[in-house]
């Protein structure tokens, strides 16, 4: 039997996130209003994505040190699930922005072009595209060892690109996205009240564990496939 306490912990934390996140008091801020509760969902997607990409690059390095094909499978599946979380973050961000950043007094096209030019969005898009290229690169190489080696090296470069694209680049340029002057979602003075942290941190852990759970399923499935091919 697999040790499953962390799966239960993940579900418990998510149930807590959904109930307390929707019911507990939040600061009353202009424009944001109740949408500040998206902190427990939208922001957590990106945090989970960053953690999963970090696990992926660690496994890529482990592969390069040992040349054990197992680590290559780990690296790939963590990257895939991280991309899914990134896409969900992007989608939820698009919904959130269209009700907060978009100005109802301006023509829709006009306010859309302002939003679409936001450096944070472009940076996140670059980061995700770099990882799409990772998957394309992987699947275009037939030879298994070559595939594993090249994609592990590429994974490291992609990871080196990730943080400049989503953190550094948007801060140099003026952005609509909150958190340009500090740490978004972690700054108690400006962004959130202290008791929002009581939900935000458990939410990040819960979502990340859910991502890890899905990844382990994918890893186990592809290890089974691998065994089937060898025997």
């Amino acid at each position, binding site marked *: 039997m*697999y040790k499953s306490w962390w*799966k239960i*912990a993940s*579900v*418990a*934390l*998510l*149930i*807590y996130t*959904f*109930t*307390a996140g*929707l*019911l*507990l008091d939040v600061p009353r801020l202009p424009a944001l209003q109740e949408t500040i509760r998206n902190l427990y969902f939208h922001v957590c997607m990106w945090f989970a994505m960053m953690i999963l990409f970090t696990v992926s690059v660690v496994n890529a390095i482990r592969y390069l040190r040992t040349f054990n094909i197992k680590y290559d499978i780990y690296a790939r599946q963590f990257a895939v699930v991280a991309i899914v979380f990134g896409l969900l973050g992007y989608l939820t961000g698009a919904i959130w922005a269209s009700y907060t950043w978009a100005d109802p007094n301006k023509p829709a096209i006009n306010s859309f072009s302002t939003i679409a030019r936001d450096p944070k969005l472009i940076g996140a898009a670059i980061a995700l595209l770099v990882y799409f290229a990772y998957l394309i690169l992987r699947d275009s190489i037939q030879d298994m060892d070559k595939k594993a080696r090249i994609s592990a090296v590429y994974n490291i470069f992609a990871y080196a690109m990730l943080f400049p694209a989503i953190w550094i680049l948007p801060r140099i340029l003026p952005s609509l996205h909150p958190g340009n002057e500090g740490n978004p979602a972690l700054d108690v003075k400006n962004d959130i009240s202290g008791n929002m942290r009581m939900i935000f941190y*458990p939410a990040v852990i819960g979502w990340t564990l*859910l991502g890890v*759970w*899905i990844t382990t*399923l994918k890893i*186990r*499935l592809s290890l*089974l496939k691998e*065994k089937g091919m060898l025997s």
Partner: protein
Amino acid sequence: MLLFSLLIISVVSFAQEKPDSYRVEMADTMRSNGRIYVVVAVALTILIGLVLYVVRIDRKISKLEREK
């Protein structure tokens, strides 16, 4: 953490009780506070449904692993 969430839920539900005694309050939780509890119920149903789905897949893969 679970204990903590139970605590919070109980605190929130205490806050719901209204002082005016002439109004008949009967199982009104789902209809109070702008019916936010309905949203919570819907969101939780979706979450639990997805989790059950993942659990099922987990079980199936475990079975496959035992067969190998």
